[in-house]
């Protein structure tokens, strides 16, 4: 399995996983996303960057229809996953979300035990045949999210009793355990120390071998480190999208440039 992963990773993938065309989002009167056109590739990490409040989370939530839960939110345009319009009437958002997983910006662990938090996804999707398999998935996911060592002795304690960064990693583990094809991560390392961050980044890199990952981040360094593609949002517009290297070294749009050059850490 390990070898295969390595093997596949080397193969260049250019297949389009998610394609967004003319996406518009309104919160009531507020036009939060304007005319966004972007193709997210399979087996690729895409970074969304942009100033706070520019619509990154909003766009991310469009990709697995989490915006459905916000009453005032309306979405226009077309978003296709593997060529199928996800806003089609016949599409079941449940199935969509099982394939397009999400880590939210604010950690939101369930008021259940740490174990149950991670086991939740595998259980509802029937990913484990028995308890042993489930245990294995839970452990693997928690290891992937760099949380295993800290919580292995307290798996039965509530996930809400963890520290902020621990909760964040728990939510990553929870999302990973569901084994989605596309993983949307909204600032997954915002509350993590550098070491935990690097471990999560490593996890992202591994996931890329088989899946597509979208990550929102405020750290240019992180975007540069983990992503192959980068999209820069500004005031609801997708200003620039391209190879990460190009964006950071050679931005075409002056806004992108000023954002990147204004960087501090």
């Amino acid at each position, binding site marked *: 399995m390990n070898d295969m992963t390595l093997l596949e990773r080397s193969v260049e993938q250019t297949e389009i996983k998610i394609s967004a065309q003319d996406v518009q989002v309104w919160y009531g009167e507020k036009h939060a996303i304007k005319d966004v056109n972007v193709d997210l590739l399979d087996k690729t990490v895409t970074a969304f960057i942009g100033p706070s409040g520019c619509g990154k989370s909003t766009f991310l939530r469009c990709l697995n229809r989490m915006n459905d*839960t916000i009453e005032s939110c309306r979405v226009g345009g077309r978003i296709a996953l593997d060529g199928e319009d996800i806003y089609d009437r016949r599409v079941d958002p*449940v199935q969509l*979300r099982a394939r397009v997983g999400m880590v939210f910006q604010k950690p939101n662990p*369930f*008021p259940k035990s740490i174990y149950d938090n991670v086991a939740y996804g595998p259980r509802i999707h029937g990913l484990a045949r028995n308890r042993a398999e489930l245990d294995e998935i839970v452990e693997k996911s928690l290891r992937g999210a760099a949380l295993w060592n800290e919580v292995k002795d307290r798996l039965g304690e*509530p996930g809400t009793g963890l520290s902020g960064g621990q909760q964040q990693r728990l939510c990553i583990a929870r*999302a990973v355990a*569901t084994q989605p094809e596309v993983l949307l991560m909204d600032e997954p390392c915002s509350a993590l120390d550098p070491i935990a961050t690097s471990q999560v980044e490593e996890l992202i890199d591994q996931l890329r071998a088989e899946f597509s990952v979208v990550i929102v981040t405020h750290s240019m360094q992180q975007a540069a480190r983990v992503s192959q593609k980068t999209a820069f949002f500004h005031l609801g517009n997708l200003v620039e999208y391209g190879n990460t290297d190009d964006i950071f070294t050679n931005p075409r749009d002056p806004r992108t440039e000023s954002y990147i050059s204004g960087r501090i850490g």
Partner: protein
Amino acid sequence: MPVSWTLLIVLALAAVGYVVTRARAIAQAGGDVRRLHSRPSYHGWHAALLTALPALFLIAIWRFVQPSAEVTLLTPLALLLAAAGLAFALIRTAPGFRARNAVESMVKGLLILCSIIAILTTAGIVFSMLFETGHFFQKYSWQDFFFGTTWSPKFGGGSQLGILPLLWGTIYISLIALAVSVPIGLFAAIYMSEYASVRLRSVAKPAIEVLAGIPTIVYGLFALITVGPALRDWFAQPMGLGSSASSVMTAGLVMGIMLIPFVSSLSDDIINAVPQSLRDGALGLGSTQSETVRKVVLPAALPGIVGAVLLAASRAIGETMIVVLGAGAAARMDLNPFEAMTTITVKIVSQLTGDNDFAAPETLVAFALGLTLFVTTLVLNIVALYVVRKYREQYE
């Protein structure tokens, strides 16, 4: 009524106290309220409370201890106390005075007082029944009461007053009522808070609440005239389970309908209060809405829902009219749900409002029944508290 005049004057004094003290505090701070420890309105409230509370307590205690005594002395005393409170508050007012803390401790005292009312009520209930229960057990042996399996009061003496058939009836009817109301109520609550449109919800919730407001006699007559005969003709007789029009099933079903809003409305509020982020978390993992509800929302809302169910159970235990008209008045221990049975509460009411000698055990038994029921439900509540503690999932 001189007392109500006194009351009015005290309240007026309190209002004056508020205004004056507030102004004084501002003046002391030289118009700059930032120099005060507490906001001026806290100084005002401090004075108002100090003026009103002691006087009001005096009036209340006076009225309680000497209900019909002369009140001429009371008025000046109360007014004096109020004035003293006001003066004291005025003296205390100073920029450094912790008026907020003072007001908050007074308010906290009031809050404590309010919760003590619950304790007082319990004490009152126990005391108002203990005495007569004692009389009852002087006239009737406690063994026969607690372990007797026959309930047949007689006018001429020689009654058998065993509580067991009544207890059984109470449990049986309540269980059926809960078996109807809890699933329906809970599902209704879930539907309203998770699925329904705002419009449907804004209509359905108050509409269902009307069910709780329909007088129980309507339910009783509904049981007696419609449900009872229907159950008898369509279920009991074809299944060979007897031909009684009044039955545990009838009363349980109808009572269950009455209890729906108790479960649905309270649960709906609690479910609605579960933070959206938890739902998002579950939905984001690809759960269906029902999985989200069952596995995340309901566990988080459990304590409130248990509270709602307990409230419904309490109403079921305390209901009389529906039982009388739906389940009949016969005390019986039977497993057949299509047989007539009755409950403790019904018998409390009927023995209290009957034509018996009021000092006879047949009447006094009502108090013993009441006290026994009280203790029984107390035990049930302790168990419920323990269970909730154990399974509570605290969010955030």
